[in-house]
């Protein structure tokens, strides 16, 4: 990957450039303890709001939002897995424990801690009219709570559904990648709390290497469906600061397979609009000219 991807955004304008910092979340060793969720809420003083049984396995915080900046998904998978069924066209309902030899080993309970992707081209930031969202010196994306006016433009702009409005205050909230802790040379609260090193934090280049190595190990152990998730520099977000090792397709975890920043093609759109506009003008001129004729 290009140096420009892991270096802080060239457009951010920091003189004292830091290496780009990010996460590598290795879901293959996630035990679903939710220490990341709790540590995040404690450190960032995020209120608890949901006191309802969701029925979604052991997940009761349901998804990332204004009050959930780290979210652990729990996916109970009966064999065969979705993509295998899709490939073969056969869906056999084999029960754990009844499948005879090896039947049980194919039942999986996937757990994955999701978080803001801290995109290179962050559409939330791009659409923010007040400048509340900004790129830090670590190339992370942060909302300034004292500037956000609650317009909500950022919310539909995020292709991952990360940022959200807090109902009782109207402002937009999301993971800051513990900007205050990073300033103090501390790792983010979620990574600090993770007991199994499922959540890793460091310079993004190191995270990329770690992710690649871990993928090799997991592939060598024949874990089905193992793959890295995280938009690269040539992707729709021009790269992200949160990488994941998943054990199945992103859709299984509720992640978009091919996200594109809504602002990525703005220039193109304007150019297209300009061309269309020029054509219209031309046509209008032509038609008037015709009238005169």
């Amino acid at each position, binding site marked *: 990957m290009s140096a420009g991807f892991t270096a802080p955004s060239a457009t951010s304008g920091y003189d004292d450039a830091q290496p780009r910092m990010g996460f590598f979340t290795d879901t293959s060793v996630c035990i679903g303890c939710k*220490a990341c969720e709790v540590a995040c809420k404690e450190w960032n003083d995020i209120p608890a709001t949901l006191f309802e049984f969701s029925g979604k396995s052991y997940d009761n915080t349901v998804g990332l939002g204004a009050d959930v900046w780290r979210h652990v998904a729990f996916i109970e998978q009966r064999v065969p897995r979705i993509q295998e069924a899709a490939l073969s066209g056969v869906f056999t309902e084999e029960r754990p424990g009844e499948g005879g030899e090896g039947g049980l080993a194919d039942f999986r309970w996937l757990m994955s801690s999701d978080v803001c992707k801290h995109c290179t081209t962050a559409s939330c930031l791009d659409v923010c009219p007040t400048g509340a969202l900004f790129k830090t010196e670590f190339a992370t994306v942060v909302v300034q709570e004292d500037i956000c006016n609650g317009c909500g433009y950022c919310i539909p702009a995020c292709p991952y559904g990360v940022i959200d409005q807090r109902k009782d205050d109207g402002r937009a909230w999301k993971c800051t990648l513990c900007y205050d802790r990073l300033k103090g040379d501390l790792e983010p609260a979620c990574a600090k709390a993770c007991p199994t090193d499922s959540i890793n934090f460091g310079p993004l280049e190191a995270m990329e290497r770690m992710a690649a190595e871990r993928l090799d190990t997991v592939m060598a152990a024949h874990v089905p469906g193992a793959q890295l998730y995280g938009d690269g520099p040539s992707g729709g977000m021009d790269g992200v600061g949160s990488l994941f090792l998943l054990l199945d397709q992103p859709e299984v975890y509720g992640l978009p397979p091919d996200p594109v920043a809504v602002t990525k093609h703005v220039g193109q759109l304007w150019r297209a609009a300009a061309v269309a506009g020029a054509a219209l003008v031309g046509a209008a001129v032509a038609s008037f000219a015709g009238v005169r004729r």
Partner: protein
Amino acid sequence: MAEQHPVGFQWVVEAQRRGAKVIHVDPRFTRTSAVADLHIPLRSGTDIAYLGGIINYILTNHREFREYVVAYTNAATIVSEEYVDAEDNGGIFSGFDERSGTYEVSSWQYEDMEVASASGQHEMGAGLGEQHGAHGGSLEHGQPPSEDPTLEHPRCVFQLLKRHYERYTPEMVAEVCGVPQELFLEHAEALCANSGRERTGAMAYAVGWTQHSVGVQYIRTAAIIQLLLGNIGRPGGGILALRGHASIQGSTDIPTLYNLLPGYIPMPHAEHYEGLDDYIDKNAAPTGYWGNMDAYMVSLLKAYWGEKATAENDFCFDYLPRISGDHSAYASVMDMLDGKVKGYFLPGQNPAVGSANSRMHRFALASLDWLVVRDFSLTESAAFWYDGPEIESGELDTPGIGTEVFFLPAAAHVEKDGSFTNTQRLLQWHDAAVEPKGDCRSELWFYYHLGRIIREKLATSDDERDRPLLDLTWEYPVQGRQSEPDAEAVLAEINGWKADGSPLGSYTEMQADGSTTGGVWIYCGVYADGVNQARRRRPGDEQSWVAPEWGWAWPANRRIIYNRASADPDGQPWSERKRYVWWDAEQEQWTGEDVPDFKASMPPDYVPPDGSQAEDALSGTEPFIMQADGKGWLFVPNGLKDGPLPTHYEPHESPVTNPLYKQQANPARQLAPHRHNPSNPSGGGGENPYPYVLTTYRLTEHHTAGGMSRTVPHLAELQPEFFCEVSPELAAERGLEHGGWATLISSRTAIEARVLVTDRIAPLRVAGNTVHQIGVPYHWGFRGLVTGDSGNELLGVVMDPNVHISEYKTATCDIRPGRRPRGPALARFIADLPRADDAPTEGGDS
């Protein structure tokens, strides 16, 4: 383990990264199963059949570590001719008394030898066996028992073991446990393949093994496997008890148990001793480290009563409280119901949610004169008298409850100094970060000042009965605005002092003549050189891989006990890969990675001369230094109340008729007959009104009875409602809707839960029938940010006879869609519930 010990589980993940294979056996597919290499579901309550199957696999396939077994276990020892195995007697061992439901153990003895109690003086057979220790059997003057090292003698332990487990075949395991044979065999083979000279395997269990009417025998079965495979006393081996709280190990070492004094010294019985000498005589073992019990006991008495304790007054032995029977938690609760117990302290305990048959506990609390609750919030146990379900149902009314409840807010661990002792016997000190707020105080503060105030009130008393209190050494420095006692001063007292007032370095320095003091002999050394050794924090990369300078482990900072077994009988490592401590012939001493378990100068070929005492009476090849014969016990001749060899019994409540024996349940299990504690009928398959297996457990998100988690918003929202886990098959059978409500019913009560239909709890094929299991966490109660019924409401109290722990992990129930009756309708509903036909008699079979 990932569910209950996520922080400790990081090391399991680390081991996996280094190539370890993790196998998880659990009725449910849990967070641990999710990352394990293999998950094996089994029917709750059938672990002895399962583990017995592994013993059978080892013996049938000659996979035992033969040299280890012959040298270090009692496999070769010949057992009395009078012994009759359960295999030959319908599931009951010789010596059983039907009337009392107890065993008399003389027929279990080694040949031509009376092996005294393995755990201090048990009064076996009288139903009063309440004393408890950890002593080895007593061998007359170190005389070794009759042995056959070829292991061929028909009455040697090895052959008895073989016969006892002959029927525990893979087919039988499948039949009893519902575990497919190939899964079972994969596990058995993995264990064997990872044991021996070059490799070791460990077993970890949590309360899933202890909370059964045969709980101690579960652990025994694991111990037999690990001894046969040579996995005890060696690095990477062992049986790891994952405790239910941060310092439960500490609270048995320095016990909150009624039948123990600190350091596993038996609590004296009211009637059985003439005096200190008689007590020592009846409890100390002539051989092994319990041979020095007099020194430990006298040092303890000196710690309690200081200068007042003299040789002339038996070192104030008569000041010690006495026990007169079973005063364990459940026995006390039954006594409350009978009006025999007037007052109760609940420091950080919430039995109105956390104990089996919690409903019965609330009736018991309502029968007290006074109750002291020390906790972080007004728990269900503090509020039962105005806010409990029995108030709602009309079975209790507030004006009618005479219990005076004192609530005292407690400090949290970050607000006080102290130590945690973990399952590795490792003490780790923690310092207070902040002072407790408001009226919150530490336990140390509470008990010190309570004692101080009582002593002040009694100061002028000349009543003889007040002497034990007034003569106590009760001088501790206090500090800070709240007059918090100095916790390190207590640690120094626990460690003990020599005659000259300097700290003891080791329990081997303790004397029986009153010249030393020491509050807990096994902790002696934790304050060696006047330094708080538990506070050491040298990073792992600055010391050897054993990390002896992180914290301090009892005894003697030893990280693996019985480590003599890590070397062969000649004192050389079994293998280079697994070397740990070994005999250095040039230096003429033991050396290696850890503190050796015995005198470092004792050569491997040491043979005790006639008349040797205590540790000197064990030979150089006897690693199990707390046992009088120095051997690991495959067969237990004395010390257990329910048999010398673990045997599969069905749980007290089971929908299955015991496929292995005529005897249905543990014949010696301890029952607690009471109108509030009825039993469900057991056995009978489909005819049973409670046809489903019920198992209770905790979730990662909550802590025990919820007092520390249901009150914390960030934890409460993670698991906000009580739910039950059922398979899609059971949901279809009973019309249960995912996300809807279900009512769960036992003969005790009915509770309601949200339904979580999940593949993680699969139906099993047992003895030709489908057995459904239902899982319920127990964290909820009627108070806190999130409320709900507790799974423990469904359970009856029926106990392991050795340790009086109730069978939380398995019972039976029925389940129906919809919510339970409320208010007075619930009381009427409970009254009409089917119960076992005739209340089982003590020890009898239902």
